[in-house]
């Protein structure tokens, strides 16, 4: 069955969202992954949005994490402090982040490119809630295209914490123990984090993707799982639900 990169990434991400857990998502691919998970694997997955929406029956993809879709027929229409405090309290299992750069420890830059903070070469939005979610949620995931500019150790600004400088660094910084990056899902492979070194470790490459291609598209040295596998492609069921129910207008999956 034919599928594009975005469909592949969303399908793969959806499988990591366990039932009876809570995920805070933004708009776009992460929201699509959470919706897909709800419809295929985890009917009781609880979706939260950082502006206050909790447990909506999403009628369509939200445009903003604060728009009215995010609490349409929801369980709670709350507030930003309520959602952030629920995260800080340790109740939220998963979140998804995006960014312009990511390093081997899963640290993410969504603030700026350049060296002068007050006069950056390129300015991005900044943390928004990303730093908070990366600090508080137990498992942080990322859905992103992979290229050597994006996957780099020369990260210009750490907006949101991954494992910082390695083992023990999060705890030393005062971040809640046990939390941190979990999976990075790219157009080439699925990457986890090595338990000992806290560095990126490729767990599976996508069908047709050579190891070499992954290496070429990464600006730092990757670890490789001993039991490296081939990513399971999207199932017919995943694709059907994704195309017909989750994103019928192809807002997200049309971007690939």
């Amino acid at each position: 069955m034919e599928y594009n990169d975005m469909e592949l990434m969303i399908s793969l991400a959806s499988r990591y969202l366990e039932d009876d857990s809570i995920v805070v998502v933004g708009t776009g691919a992460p929201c699509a992954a959470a919706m897909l998970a709800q419809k295929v694997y985890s009917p009781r997955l609880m979706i939260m949005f950082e502006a206050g929406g909790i447990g909506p029956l999403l009628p369509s993809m939200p445009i903003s994490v604060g728009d009215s879709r995010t609490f349409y027929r929801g369980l709670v229409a709350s507030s930003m402090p309520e959602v952030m405090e629920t995260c800080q309290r340790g109740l939220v299992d998963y979140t998804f982040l995006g960014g312009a750069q990511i390093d081997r420890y899963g640290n993410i830059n969504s603030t700026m490119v350049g060296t002068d903070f007050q006069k950056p070469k390129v300015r991005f939005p900044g943390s928004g809630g990303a730093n908070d979610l990366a600090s508080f949620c137990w498992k942080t995931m990322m859905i992103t295209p992979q290229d050597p500019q994006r996957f780099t150790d020369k990260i210009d600004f750490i907006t949101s914490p991954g494992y910082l400088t390695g083992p023990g660094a999060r705890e030393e910084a005062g971040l809640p123990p046990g939390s941190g990056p979990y999976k990075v899902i790219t157009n080439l492979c699925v990457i986890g984090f090595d338990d000992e070194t806290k560095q990126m470790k490729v767990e599976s490459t996508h069908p047709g993707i050579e190891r070499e291609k992954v290496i070429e598209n990464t600006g730092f040295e990757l670890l490789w799982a001993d039991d490296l596998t081939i990513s399971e492609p999207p199932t017919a069921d995943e694709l059907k639900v994704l195309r017909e129910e989750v994103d019928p207008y192809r807002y997200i999956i049309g971007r690939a």
Partner: protein
Amino acid sequence: MDNYIKFNEERTVTYKPAGSGKIFTDPDADKMREYFRDQKPRKMVDKASSIDRVVKELVNDGDYIGVGGFGANRIPTAVLHEIVRQQKKNLGLAGHTATHDFQILVGGKCIDRCDVAYIVGLEARGLSKSARRAVESGEITLTEWTNAALTWRYKAAAMGVSFLPVRCMLGTDTEKYSASVEMECPFTGSKYLAVPALYPDVGIIHVHRADVYGNCQIDGIMVADNDLARAARRLIVTTERFVPNEYIRRDPAKTVIPYYLVDAIVEVPFGSYPGNMAYEYFSDEEHLRAWLKAEKDEAGFSDFLQRHIYGVSDFNGYLDTIGGLKRLQELRATENLVEK
């Protein structure tokens, strides 16, 4: 019986400023207590005003502003446009998911400093060229925070304390460009960041309904507006519609902003346009795209602002430029999932 105090003797600890950022507003809770005692309008009297007047009387050049809602959801567009129209200068802004609101104020060149959590972007819609130009030129002084950090800075102010301990930002460059202080818990010794109370000079919030005294109801999510309303020195509210005081008293649990916090209130139907107003009208994605497109070159953007802001005398004039009630009715249908 356990006693869970880890430290039960006097001890010295270190407070370590963690960021190079500036604090743009005074976090002193005692000074604000005096301000609130002397200046907050405790009279329950008719405070209905006009957009023109509230901006003239309550927004001064140099003020630091906090905007309610969430970027392009339940934002007080009419006041933001009027600030641009009256050419207010050197404003500070709490960039707490500031998307279209930031875009408007930067379009008018009103801002010279900003506490950043989220700026220059419009979420899934893309980045604002004009806002990026302004920020990348260095003309706006920035201090970096996060959405939660800014929300808690409002909350500290709302609680009447000059700081709160938080666990975000730690270990990152966001921390390094913030103005937070590393400290530890007196009971557990755990590391925290202290963030300073944020008391804006002016808070501006759009609500679903209110009485003329300023008792306000909001439907749906609150974002950070209950705290912002309590933190602001002066508070301007715009409301979709006025309701009688009796309506407010029918369900007092729904009042999120009591009158004694409000300095002036203006009825502005469709006041969050082109933003979304829950249960009322959806965001006008077409018009927001037009903004993003117009920003691509400075001359074109000038014309755009002329047409939609400078060239009209008030918010109703603006609504006429985008298709008036006919367009607004379409957005109402979209919001309420009415099939066309």
